[in-house]
């Protein structure tokens, strides 16, 4: 029934909700009120015609907690669907980050070289700075930011994870 009750795993959960006032507060309040973790949270309207938004939450917990999180989300009135992408098969997860690097000389050239390896794009540039845009899974984004630390990293802005199941099936 509960083979590894203490095992804490990360789960990517996708929640389809009515895009109405307060819906995000409901979801976030549920997590804080019940003591669940939010590693990242991303939200945007995905179906304007039906006023539906999709929230992607990266959370962690024991299997029993994850089950609770899904059940608790499911009983919120404006929630249409809750999908545990981690359990439901392979999925693609991506994050976008903007990384500002300030510096000159060799460091500046090096940052551009690394950006090229990571397929990050420079979306803004001055004589002393770049803003790189990088898209990838969380590990890749983390690795890029880590490398930039020594090369003049001054600011990071990240979207949090968005994810979708692989294959033909929609949620």
């Amino acid at each position, binding site marked *: 029934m509960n083979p590894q009750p203490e095992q804490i795993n990360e789960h990517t959960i996708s929640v389809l909700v009515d895009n109405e006032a307060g819906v995000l507060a409901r979801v976030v309040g549920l997590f804080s009120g019940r003591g669940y973790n939010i590693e990242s949270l991303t939200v945007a309207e995905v179906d304007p015609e039906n006023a539906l938004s999709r929230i992607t939450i990266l959370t962690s917990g024991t299997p029993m907690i994850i089950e609770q999180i899904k059940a608790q989300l499911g009983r919120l*009135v404006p929630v249409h669907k809750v999908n545990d992408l981690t359990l439901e098969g392979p999925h693609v997860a991506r994050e976008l980050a903007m990384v500002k690097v300030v510096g000159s000389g060799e460091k500046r050239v090096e940052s551009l070289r690394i950006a090229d390896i990571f397929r990050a794009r420079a979306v803004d540039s001055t004589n002393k700075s770049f803003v790189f845009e990088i898209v990838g899974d969380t590990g890749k984004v983390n690795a890029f930011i880590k490398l930039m630390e020594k090369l003049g990293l001054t600011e990071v802005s990240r979207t949090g994870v968005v994810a979708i199941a692989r294959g033909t099936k929609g949620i």
Partner: protein
Amino acid sequence: MASKQLNGSQIVLKALVDQGVEDVFGYPGGAVLPLYDEIFKQNQLRHILVRQEGGAVHAAEGYARSTGKVGVVLVTSGPGATNAVTGLTDALMDSVPIVCLTGQVPTHLIGNDAFQEADTTGITRPCTKHNYLVKDINDLARVVHEAFHVARSGRPGPVVIDLPKDVLMGQGPYSPPTEAGHKSYRPQLKGDAAQIRRAVGLMASAKRPLFYCGGGVINSGPEASRLLKTLIKKTGYPCALTLMGLGAYPASDKQFLGMVGMHGTYEANMAMHDCDLMINIGARFDDRVTGRLAAFSPGSKKIHVDIDPSSINKNVSVDIPVIGDVAHVLKEMLAVWKTERAKPDTPALKAWWRQIGKWQKRDCLSYKTNSKVIKPQQAIQRLYEATKGHDDVFITTEVGQHQMWAAQFFKFDNPNHWLTSGGLGTMGYGLPAAMGVQVAHPKALVVDIAGEASTMMNIQEMSTIAQYRLPVKVFILNNHYMGMVRQWQDLLHGSRYSETYMDSLPDFVKLAEAFGAVGLRATRPNQLDNVIKEMLATDKAVIADIRVDKMENCFPMIPSGAAHNEMLFGNNGDDSLASEEGMVLV
């Protein structure tokens, strides 16, 4: 489509009437003046003017739980709404359907810290099942209908509708209730057929089965209680009920083992600990029931029927979850039991009942009476005996020792007649709740079994009771202490009674008279029956001040952090103190 335009207040009232509302509990104020003006002009809805908004919500809870209908509350913005918060939380914890209309400052002032402004939807979001802020009058009728649908379907709960004053005064269209109720909210009513078959299979092969049933049975409606009785009678299995479930199965039946949990009976708790199959119907494995989770019913398989998927596997892992409405699932279970020609394992069941008989012989609720001082248990038992002849008896309680004694000694044979604050444990619940019950059932006998400390928490509602000539009986077990808190100080804090003595209590007899009610008092056991008799014969509100043994504690008891087979028996057993780990629990 040019439908007739109404003002916002007319739309709200029309929607309430179309939802079958007859009574509203409320308190006026600036932001809801337009609504009160429309209330003045009509005679389809009766408004009950409470004395504090908290009383309005508890009264609506009493009304809802005794009728199965949605209770309706109307309060103003700011303090009106914040005073309602405790009642809303109470209704959420005990799954009571409530629609609470709150006034709000006009939309253009929202967020400006206007007079009597509070972020009502923000404050009530975690203590309601759902809430709405209506900013557009075109949504108003739909939202009110939707609120009723959400409040009463699935696991019932409180819903707040925040109504800015300009919306109440604007002009807009009215639309009647729709069949669907809500565009997407559809709780699952029918249980999964395969799961039900598996559950019945387990039931038929059980050797030491136990039905453990809760408030979900009562919320599912009277039919659920009838089906439960049929199923339990058919199987011959024992049944225990939670605090919220009392009345779901007749207490007078010999298959009933009593209440489970912290102050449940020895036989119910031991049966829970030792059973090999637990059939949970509409209960939620609350911490007051389970005791120490690691030692909770270690040898049993568990079936759990609940309409709320989040109740499944929340505290206790179960083997067969069935998500659905209790009445629907019980009906299916009975059908499968019949078609599969299931039969209980008679020899095993006989042995199980023999074992239960041994536990029952322990007579865990026994207490010693004497001629000098009234025992609280005795007071409730005498009250119960005296009310047996009445057709319709509703009991509400406050929170504390008297509540547990009432649960132990008052026997309920029907659902919806026992109203107590179980989940939140709200002192001050019983008096306004009794008021709400009496509004719904003017002819019935409604008794608030109370403690003197809890009574003081909503005593202002005696004035409402006077205004509407409600013959509510307040039966106070007066021991001059916050008894349950003191009991824990006895168990865990070296009997240091820090701030639990109720000094300077009012003279409850005179207090009753001040509110136009009748005051009675019993100080000695030989006065008890006469006072009860007089109370029941009085056709007005009564406060009966029953002076009981000040130091009596409530037993049996599973101390916090202990298991079901580690019960304390108080004066008639050998007790050890609760554990250190138990001390940090509540």
